[in-house]
């Protein structure tokens, strides 16, 4: 079954929140999953796999300790947190490449590299273990497969945008991946009580007249 990009984004956002990210980071996760689906990548599968791995851990252990030329965390680097920081600090790429050490699910960095590309009006490349993703913001060119964990990702500016993948208008997550995201998303919902049923939505005058 295909899903609208809006559905993908909303589900991914709630899932990230459910897995313990702040609302602002959850918004980033939603946009990231959406962007990956537009590029025909498995945005939901990647996010579901990542959240499954990070769930229950202290997220601050996976946050870059400093934003210099080489980013490391106490533990592995979270691609959402470091991706968002990469987008925030896009201008730093103008003074040289940035290396991210010990990244899990590095494919989740692609949408943030795209963000940096838009902000700089440049082409941005991610390289890890022989695989290479290049983006001008709207499009993605991909060579090789991004692993679920890598010792390092090198982010750099490029002069040329190679031939890009076709863009998509729908997402086609597997039922399993969607179920994983929905399970995390479910944690953001307050259990219904009779009180909330009546008060929360604002019962009032008759609605059948």
């Amino acid at each position, binding site marked *: *079954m*295909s*899903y*609208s*990009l*809006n*559905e993908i984004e909303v589900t991914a956002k709630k899932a990230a929140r459910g897995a313990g*990210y*702040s*609302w*602002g*980071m959850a*918004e*980033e996760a939603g*946009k990231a999953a959406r962007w990956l689906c537009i590029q025909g990548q498995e945005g939901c599968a990647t996010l579901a796999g990542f959240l499954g791995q990070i769930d229950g851990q202290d*997220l601050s252990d996976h*946050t*870059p300790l400093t*934003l210099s030329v080489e980013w490391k965390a106490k533990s592995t680097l979270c691609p959402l*947190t470091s991706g*968002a*920081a990469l*987008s*925030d*600090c896009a*201008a730093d790429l103008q003074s040289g490449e940035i290396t991210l050490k010990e990244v899990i699910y590095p494919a989740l960095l692609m949408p943030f590299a795209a*963000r940096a590309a*838009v*902000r700089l009006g440049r082409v941005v490349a991610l390289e890890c273990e022989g695989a290479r993703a290049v983006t001008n913001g709207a499009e993605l060119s991909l060579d090789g497969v991004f692993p679920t964990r890598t010792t390092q990702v090198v982010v750099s500016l490029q002069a040329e945008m190679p031939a890009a993948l076709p863009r998509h*208008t*729908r997402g086609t997550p597997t039922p399993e991946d969607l179920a994983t995201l929905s399970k995390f998303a*479910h944690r*953001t*919902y*307050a*259990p*219904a*009580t009779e*009180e*909330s*049923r009546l*008060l*929360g*939505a*604002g*019962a*009032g*005058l008759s*609605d*059948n*007249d």
Partner: protein
Amino acid sequence: MEAPAQTHIARRDPETVMRLSRLGSFHQCRLSFMRQLTRRLARENWSFSRPVFDIDENGVGRVVYTAQGPEHAYSLVAFAHDLPPEKRSDRVIADAWDATFALFDGVPTKEDVDRLSQNVPLQEAGRVSESELSLSRANRSVRLWKHVVDALASGQQPDLEQIYQVGYLMRTTAVYGSGKFGASDRENIADRPETQAPFQAEMLSVYLTRTFVRDLVQHMANIKGGAKTAELDSNIARWLGIGNSTGLGMAPFLVNHPVLLNNWIIAREEAIARVRSIEFASATEAQHFRDVFERSKLSVSWWTSEHPIQIEKLAKLREDLDKITAYLTQDDLTRDYPWNRMVEWSEDALSEEGQELVASQILEPYADLVDDLGIQMANKNMDVFYIDGSMSVDELRSTLKAQFGWALDKDWTVQEHCARAWYVSEEKLEPRLGERFEEPIEEYEQPLAPARDAARAYAALAGWDGDKRVAEFLLQHPEHRHTVRRVQIRPVAPYGEIQDNTISCDIMPIDMLRCKLSFFGATHFDPRSDRWVRICMYSGAPYPEELSIENADQWVYPELPA
């Protein structure tokens, strides 16, 4: 937004406009999405047809209406149901309705309609596809439906007074667009001329729904009355709008879409500023205003509510109408910046209901000055989602102070300032507003209190070296990321933030609903509690077959047949 050279009177200050009580007093205007739609349909000479009308004697079946424009066709696929009265509810927790609809992108085949017949009647529990642009449902107004069917079936016309008071035969209880439940994303149609302005697909769906309801009530009367049944008089049918019942689901929209909110408000404020900057109005323009004002009095006379707050607001509005009438006897509205003088007068003399009525109505004579702003109400500036992490902590601090100064001084631990919390219930996955200190909801709180969150971010910045970058602050404090984003959006969206406390003990969510619905073009706001409201849409509008350049715009101001 580019201001034309002649605008020397500034737009109203966001601090004035973006208060909840004022947003909750907004009225429709030339820029309303319904009026943008009907003007376009007439200007481009759209044609309308009803290729399928397959309804049985119990009122059950399917109907298709197609609207054909210059490049694209859109079809309302409607399913009529036989709903037991005990199942009829406007609330989002309902699971059956009198009628259900999808707006199909193009002309559906029989297979498309069959597919939709398996899904659309289920609404949220079904799936639609990229071929559908909206999903909606409607319930009858039981009293008026019965009256109209009975009257027509006995060869009589229905009583106009009853129609004026109720305003519609059916009310929609949700109109879902933009990728909901599998439907097409907004991006897929955002570049088409007819769907560039906001909510045009949804407004078209509702416009065609109104035609469906008229046709269905006639069909049911024909079955009941047989040969003696009267044909509904078109001069009466015109006063049948479509109702809408809107709950809390709509309120977070304004907070979650600051750029879109800004674009709506700034378009109207720019229009107001342009008109206020006119030094001389022609006699025709002045008369146009007077005519519209007189006609709007009739519309207000049909506006009733049982809600204490709206009853009071309506009483004030009626006093305001009298004051405006008196003002108009003393001013010929042609010289010395007539519209600006009137707006300035209204700020002292009238309630916010009256002030906003004046602000909307002075735009009426000036299609050439105002209507081009309509297209700018969409959000095309997706880039503002990005955070500029190179901003200094000092700059963030001063920006927070400039934007949320009023909120930083507030003690957010005091119960009355944070009595409420927005959350999403497990049950219907819809936003609700709860009592923070009485219900176990705080850990599920949605980020819909920008002012409180701004104060929290400001407090977290204490002790930070001012030269540090925001990116570093956010690494340590990801919980303030959504606030930093909002703060950075504000320079490009000065009207994007509600400048009020959205979690106070006395928050009225209906103010947020009314703001949004007024931009749709709704009238006759009738709150049913502090958090849901009924409105009327398209009352007075010509039906598709009657639509012309002459009647496509001013229908919102009723004119009684001579």
